[in-house]
Structure formats: C-alpha cells, structure tokens
C-alpha cells in the first residue's frame, strides 16, 4: 500500500510573542484574545486540531510504519491531557493559560494538541538560549531552523518506537505464545501428532494467561510512560501498581472499555470474510477493483479505529491523572518513588504533599505477590466449578456456590482478630473482585481474537498485534491481492 502523503506543511498554530511571555502577564493575553487576528488564529487552530490532525491520524492508521507515528502522537497527546488536567485543578488555572504554564516548563514541555510534522513552539525554540545560557549563535539557530519542518515527525516516531518496545516487552510474550500455539497446535492436529497434542493447547493457555497478566498492568504503565516521557517509567512496577490500587473501579472500567471497544473493531476486521464471492459487486469485480474497494473499506475502519483509540487514551489519561493525585495525597508512595518529571510538575502546580521516606508495604495490595496468588487460586476454583457444572450438570451450582461462600467465610477469622478488620476484609475481597473482573475482561478481549482469526485469518498480525493496545494499524490487505491487482 502506498503511504498516504503527509501534507507539506501543516498550517501552524503558533503562539505569538505575547503568549510566549511568562504567565504573570495576563493583560497581554487578554489583549491578544480580543483582536480579530487572534480569533481567526484560534478558529484555524481549532480547525487544525479537530479536523485536519484527526484526518491525518486516520490515514496513518492505514499503514504499519505510519501507525508507529500514531502511537507516538497519542502518547504525546496523553501527556498534554494529564498535565492540563492537573493544571486545571491547581491555583495556576486562575492565574494564566495552560500554554503559559507549559512555557515555564521549557521548550520541550507537553502540548495539548501535538503536531504530526512541524515542530511546536517555533519561536520559543528559536529564541531559547544556548546550553550555557548565552544567546544562540547563527549556526545554532540555523540548525534549529532545519529541525523545524520535521521535528514533530521525529518526536512521534521516537516516542512511538519507545512505546511499542515497552508494550511488546510485556505483552509480546503472550502474543508470541498464542501465535505459536495456533500455528503449532493446528499443524500437530493436522498431522495427528497425538503424542504431542498437549503442547499446542498448553502453549495457547499459557500465552493467554501471560497476555492477560500483562494487560493487568500495561494500560496504566502506558500512560505513565507517556506522561513522564521516560522509557524506564514503563517498568516502574511499584508506582504503577499503586496507581492501579488507588483507582480500581475506574481501572476496571478502562479495561472494560478497551475490551468492549475492541469488539466492533474485531468485527470490522473479520467482515471481509463475507464480501468477495458473496456479493455480486465484489464477486464480479476485477482484482484491481476489489483492491480499491477493500482499501476504501479499511479506510473507513481506520476512521472508526482512530477515534476509538483516542477515546481509550483519553480514559486512560483520566484514570491515571486521578490515580496519581490520590497516591500522592494519601502518601501511598515513598518520596523516591515519584518520578522526577511528575515531582517537578506537581510541585509547580502545588498539588504535591509530603511523602513518606519509605512506601507502605503492599501486603495484599493490587499487584502484590499475595494478590496474584489469591487471584489465581480464585480463578482455579472458578474454572473447576465451571467444569463441575459442565460434567455434573446444573445440580452442581449449589455446591459451587457453597464452596465460594466457604472460601470467603474461612478467611474471616484471620481478619477479625485485628482492629479495622471489617474494612480490611472488604478491601481484601474487593481486590479479589478486581482481579477476577480484570481477568475476565481481558479474557473476553483475547477470546474474540480467537473467534475472529477462525473466521478470517490474518497471518502474524492476527495474534501479534492488537490495535487498541499495540500498533493502531488496520492494514489487512492480503499480499496476494496487492500482487494480482498490479497492472
């Protein structure tokens, strides 16, 4: 497929000089807003932000390479969203604009509406002092000018690659095992290798569990990486698990959204199984015409994928924003657990309180070893109960319920001997519930991939790429069709 052309130059939504001034000059800002040019600029900016950039995003979702840019772009967008959310909760919200605040963070500060190609904050970039604090020389300025047309492109690519590297670092193992299981499992089944028949399903189950386990953590870690702009932040396990524990309900909601939103995307991905050879318009078309029709269809799918992805990122950013404030205000993390970038921003915004020197122990907390063990045990019991119902029949339901109640009651004495026991007991069971809910949400997410791949197989991409989690790409044009459609 031909990569959609990137517009030569995106109309710049540039700050004019008064906006580049420090935030403590609100009068200048108000004067700019009142001018006709300012209003026109805002309208143009809004047009670019809400029409042109999404269109580019949609086009970029149509190719594997450009979808890396989409990943980077959405990460930068999340960064701006989170920072703006905190800024709105701070006193600075009443004292100046968000842009004013961002300028105090330097020329590389987050932006609310990232660009695809051209550098943001051009004037601030050109006029910023050299590393030694002196005025920039002509040569330095020339280099900076050279970077202007493609800096955002480079940034999107860099952030995108970093993001995908980290995401695959955790989710990739599960994906690989699922893929291996599908390939090897059916290969073995075809050849009736009864002696090794267990390897395929076993690898599949292991892959599914690994993927689900990774997805317990990844959505929050993705935002943490995006907001801090730091690759290493992705594996800041202690901090990320505390964030998940701080907002379990909304985090489960986020998982539910991604799982549910991926369902129509899976349907769209699978639907071409029922186009050609089923409808005369497709059946009677030449290869070139089929290619064109399929491209059009997939482009429409991209128009569904990109907004869905933005919505998922928006929700993830919202959950993260609230979770960070919670853990900081409650002192659930140690001073050194807070990432320097977050520390700096929250301090400037006045949202950061004192933190303990050592973080409270996780004990049964979300992400702790105990949480994993208890959650897994619950899961085994549930699956065993389900199997019992299948084997014995509906009569097994009372026994299953009995076991569940017994398991819950058995733990009561361990809690009741201490103060605040009831709250602890409820929290403990709440976390078990969170484990169960997260597991089944992500299980549903994976299960629909299996169904989709049975109906319409996508070699490699089917199991190795999940569009709302990894590469947001909807390029499902078969290689043989590209080949045969060539004149």
């Amino acid at each position: 497929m031909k990569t959609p052309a990137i517009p030569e130059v995106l109309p710049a939504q540039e700050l004019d000089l008064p906006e580049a001034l420090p935030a403590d000059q609100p009068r200048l800002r108000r004067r700019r807003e009142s001018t006709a040019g300012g209003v026109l600029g805002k309208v143009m900016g809004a047009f670019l932000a809400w029409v042109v950039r999404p269109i580019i995003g949609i086009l970029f979702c149509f190719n594997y390479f450009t979808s890396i840019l989409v990943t980077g772009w959405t990460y930068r967008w999340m960064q701006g969203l989170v920072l703006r959310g905190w800024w709105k909760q701070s006193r600075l919200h009443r004292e100046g604009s968000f842009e004013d605040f961002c300028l105090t963070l330097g020329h590389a500060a987050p932006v609310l509406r990232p660009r695809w190609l051209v550098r943001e904050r051009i004037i601030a970039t050109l006029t910023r002092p050299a590393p030694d604090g002196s005025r920039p020389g002509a040569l330095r300025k020339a280099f900076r000018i050279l970077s202007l047309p493609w800096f955002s492109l480079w940034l999107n690519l860099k952030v995108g690659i970093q993001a995908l590297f980290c995401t695959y670092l955790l989710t990739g193992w599960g994906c690989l095992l699922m893929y291996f299981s599908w390939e090897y499992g059916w290969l073995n089944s075809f050849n009736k290798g009864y002696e090794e028949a267990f390897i395929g399903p076993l690898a599949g189950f292991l892959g599914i569990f690994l993927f689900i386990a990774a997805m317990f953590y990844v959505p929050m870690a993705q935002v943490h990486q995006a907001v801090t702009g730091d690759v290493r932040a992705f594996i800041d396990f202690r901090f990320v698990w505390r964030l998940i524990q701080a907002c379990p309900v909304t985090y489960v909601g986020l998982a539910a959204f991604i799982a549910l939103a991926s369902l129509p995307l899976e349907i769209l991905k699978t639907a071409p199984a029922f186009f050609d050879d089923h409808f005369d318009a497709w059946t009677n078309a030449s290869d070139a015409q089929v290619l064109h029709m399929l491209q059009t269809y997939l482009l429409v799918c991209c128009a569904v994928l990109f907004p869905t992805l933005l919505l998922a990122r928006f929700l993830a950013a919202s959950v993260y924003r609230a979770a960070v404030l919670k853990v900081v205000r409650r002192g659930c993390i140690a001073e050194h657990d807070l990432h320097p970038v977050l520390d700096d921003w929250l301090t400037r915004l006045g949202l950061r309180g004192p933190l303990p020197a050592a973080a409270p122990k996780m004990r049964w907390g979300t992400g702790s070893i105990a949480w994993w063990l208890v959650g897994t045990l619950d899961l085994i019991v549930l699956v065993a109960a389900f199997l019992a119902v299948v084997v014995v029949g509906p009569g097994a339901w009372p026994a299953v319920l009995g076991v569940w109640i017994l398991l819950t009651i058995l733990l009561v004495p361990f809690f009741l001997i201490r103060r605040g026991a009831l709250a602890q007991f409820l929290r403990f069971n709440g976390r078990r519930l969170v484990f169960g809910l997260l597991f089944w949400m992500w299980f549903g997410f994976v299960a629909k991939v299996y169904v989709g791949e049975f109906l319409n197989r996508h070699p490699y991409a089917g199991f190795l790429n999940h569009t709302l989690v990894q590469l947001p790409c909807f390029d499902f044009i078969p290689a043989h069709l590209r080949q045969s459609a060539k004149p």
Partner: protein
Amino acid sequence: MFSQPIDRRRFLYQAAAGVGAISTSLAGGCDEREPKAASADPPPVAEEEVNAGPPKPYTGPNVILIRFGGGVRRLETVLSPETTYCPFVYHELYKKQGILFNHVDIESSPGIETSHGQGTLYLLTGKYDHYEDISHKPLADRFEAKVPTIFEYLRKKYDIAEHQALIINGEDRINEEFYTFSNHHLYGVRFRSTVLSLYRFKSYLLREELKSAELADKEREEKTKQLREMENKDYRVQDRRVTSPELDRFWANWRNYYGRMGLVNPRGDRVLTALALRALRELRPKLLMINYQDTDYVHWGNPHFYTRAISIIDDGIRQIYEAVQADEEYRNNTVFLVVPDCGRDNNRCMAVTYQHHFNSKCAHEIFVVAAGPGIAHPQVPVDKRRQQISVAAAVGKLMKFPTAHVDGSAGYLKEMLL
C-alpha cells in the same frame, strides 16, 4: 373399459416421461437460460415395487465413490495441470482414462448448505434438502436423510451383504457415522451400509474386552457404559445388530497388525486409505464410499493444510486404484467416481482465499471425475452444468438399481456412460 389390466410399472414410466416432456417444453418456452442440469435426461424409475421379490445376486461393476472431502475448489484440483495438487486424479483418472464434469454445482437455494454433512447426504440421496441437526447441540451436525441412500437402493435390489456396502469415515467426524441409512419407511435400517472407522474399531475393542471373564466388575461396568454411549449415539439402531463375523474378523486383523493403542496405524486421511485397501482385500465391497476430509483443516487458516490434504487424498486414490488393478476380481470391473462434498470460498479479501465454505458462489462449484469400465473418455471436459445430486442417479445407472426418490430433474451424468 380396458381389455387388459394396466401395467403399473409401464404406466409410471409413461407418466413420468410425459411429465418430464411437459416440464421440459414449458421450461424451454418460458426461460432462455440453460436448463437446469440435464433436465432432458430421462428421469430414473419412480416406483418402489420394481424391487419387489427377493433380492437378486449382484453381477454389475463395483463402484468406489470418493468424497474428495473437506471441500475443495476446482482451481487446486481439476482446472489445469499447472494448478492441480492432485496429479493422479487429473492426469490418470481424467486425462488418460475417464471423464471430467467441470461444471458441477450444488444448487443455490434457501436452506441448501455447502457443508460436509449436507454435501455427503446430497451425494448419498440424490436430493437437495434442508437438513436440521436432530440433536440440537451446537456444532453437532447430526442429520438424518429422509429419502433412501444409494446403499439402501442397492441392498434392496440386490443380495449384497451389509459389509459389502461400505462407508469409510475419518476419525474425528462422529456425526458422519450415521449417514448409513435413511428414515424412509420402505428402506431404512434393514438396507443400511456399514461404516469402517476408528470409532467403530474402538467400539469393537470394547466389545472384545467385555468378553473377557477376567474383567473386574467395576471395570466391566465402566466399559459397558462406555460401549453403550458409543453405540447409542445412533438411537435408531439400538435394537439392531451392529456387528457381523466379517466385520469382527476385519477388526481383529486390524488389531493384530496395528495393535490396540491407535498410535501405529496411519493417521488423518491416510487411515481412510489404509482402511479402504484392507476392506478391498478382506470385505470385497461392491459399493464403497470413502469420505476424505482433511482439506477442511484450512478453516484454521494455514493454507498448506489444504494443498497438502489434496495431495494426500490424491495419493490415497492412487493407492486404491493400484490395489484395484492388482486384484483380478476388481480389475476392469470397478468404476471410480471422485466428487467433492462442497467447494470452498474464493474470497480475495482474505489472506487465505479458500479458508471457508460459507455458502458463497465458489462454495457451490465442484466437479466430478469418473473412470473405469463403461465410462466414456471424451478427453475434453464436459462443460455443461450438472448438479451434485446427479451422482446418486449415476451410481444407480452404473449398478443398475432404481433410484426412485432422487431428484430426477438433475439427470444422471449421461455423458459419462458409454
């Protein structure tokens, strides 16, 4: 009134011919399209009483009906020597000896599905029908034919033992174990065919184990229960004998050669070939249907499952053909009919264009290759449209038994008969 009593047989012949002629002329006058496959062929005999009286001994040719199963397209089989994955069927059976009908269709009508169970029943009964699963379980596909199968016609007309009217089935399609007879009140279980499959071998092993006096009570109870479950899958034969000395001998030989554990015998579609070769030697079937199936593995998306399976089936046909030629009784007295149960999709929007057979246009398009004594060898394919169900009538013509309940409008592949 009439001076002579009416001969009912002659009356039915004439009535059928008259109705056929009227319908042909009406169709010709109203519609310029190509008439439905071979509607000009004289319809098969439409009466039950033709078989009245004791069955006669069979002296006609043997027929080996090969379900080129799991659904295949013409492209990878018979369309051209460059694209075929079944060189034996293409070069030997079609090009050197037999005839190819390359425009055979499965009718596109509501309720007519392009799947394996249905396709097999269309072949067996010679009639399209909407089949519904009688077990009402997901993916069970337990169908029952309402009209007689070719095996029932054959065994009703001729004195052919149950074990000489054989169906050979694969190891993991239990639902296909029960296509041996129809629910028709004049035919049915009395004239059924016999199935050879690993499923049947397992039930044989259980029966043998239960004969042992050394079996502990608990073990005996378990094995009896297991055997009952296997046998009772077909509720219609619970009160019927499911074994015979010939079959027991066949399975005993199989066990002696391949053992009991199932890990020594050939696997996949190769086991069907092995069963067919042994059956030819030991059971001497007159009508043998082999239900190959492994091309269907491509549902899971690996394209080479399909092409490899075609080649494996082709090699199986070659082995069976060679076995027939090496056997004096079968040589020059055995007709091969190769026909798929259904086609497969031709969906260019999918990475594997033939992954499924979702009732698409191409899934309705199949072929028939016939070769053997009495079969024409025109050296060019028959391009006229024919119907899959006409295979049943064609078998009837070859083996000279009436097929009263087949859809006569589909004809009987008359070009293949010399």
